């Protein structure tokens, strides 16, 4: 059957060689033109020629794909996800991905329908994504810098001034263990991996 998607250029990024092959065969049978393939975004997809990038979303690949596509070419992003954790789904949704497909539910027909919708600028998300996104948003709101206690702000302020754990402990008359505990609480609250990241976040939010 001919459709308006005839010849739409698609790039397939998928680390599993057989799944990738299955996707490519599905797209070709569906009338799309597969202009490239990669695994873990290697080689880097050529978005100058691809109108749709179907990519496997995991931490690093997701960030790279979103950055790459954000260069303004208007390529539609369709993410396939094996482990649909709330943070990843939130990153994808916030990053402008047109569609998210869960591997467990993925079939050739669903793949084609989803990419056709993406070409028409319609979003396709898993049915249970919204509650997960709301849950994630609530968690992020709870981790906002504004929720920091005075003690946590004091510690962050001294971190920002370049003090180490011992220096902060001396300045605030805390034990070093207490300072470490406070720092741990701050990192958890702000969902940060490092002290520097927490200082940056709190500074940008104007709370220290």
């Amino acid at each position: 059957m001919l459709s308006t998607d005839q010849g739409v250029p698609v790039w397939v990024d998928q680390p599993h060689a057989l799944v990738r092959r299955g996707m490519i065969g599905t797209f070709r049978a569906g009338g799309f033109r597969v202009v490239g393939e990669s695994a873990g975004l290697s080689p880097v997809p050529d978005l100058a020629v691809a109108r749709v990038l179907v990519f496997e979303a995991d931490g690093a690949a997701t960030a790279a794909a979103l950055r790459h596509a954000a260069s303004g070419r208007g390529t539609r992003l369709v993410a396939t996800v094996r482990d649909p954790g709330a943070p990843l789904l939130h990153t994808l949704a916030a990053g402008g991905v047109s569609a998210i497909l869960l591997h467990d539910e993925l079939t050739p027909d669903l793949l084609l329908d989803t990419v056709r919708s993406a070409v028409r600028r319609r979003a396709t998300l898993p049915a249970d994504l919204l509650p997960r996104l709301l849950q994630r948003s609530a968690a992020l709101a709870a981790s906002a810098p504004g929720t920091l206690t005075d003690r946590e702000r004091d510690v962050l302020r001294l971190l920002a001034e370049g003090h180490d754990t011992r220096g902060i402990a001396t300045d605030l008359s805390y034990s070093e263990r207490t300072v470490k505990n406070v720092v741990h609480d701050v990192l958890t609250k702000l969902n940060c991996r490092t002290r520097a990241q927490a200082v940056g976040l709190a500074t940008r939010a104007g709370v220290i």
Partner: protein
Amino acid sequence: MARVLLGEFAALVRAGLLSLLAEERAQVVQAADQDVPAWVAQGRPDVVVLDLDGGHVGALARYLCERYPAVTVVACSSSRPAMRVFPPFHHGESYTRPLDPEALRALVRG
């Protein structure tokens, strides 16, 4: 022409396998995992390809290797790029390697 028996797989993995086997001009029969022993007894394929992620696949592969030692059994993971190969005449011994379509082709060619 190699005779290949394909067990149950996720749809896109199956599509990828069928495309690869078509290029090898293999004669392919697809079966539910529970029917694999009967199909092997009946058709004596050269290669049986199973989904490594199926919990029962290890036992099924060992059964096939024991009953039909000339058959090559390959279990490909649907979720990870890995495959386990049970070579013929090795009494069910196996090795796991990265899933590589070329390696799969070589096994089908014998």
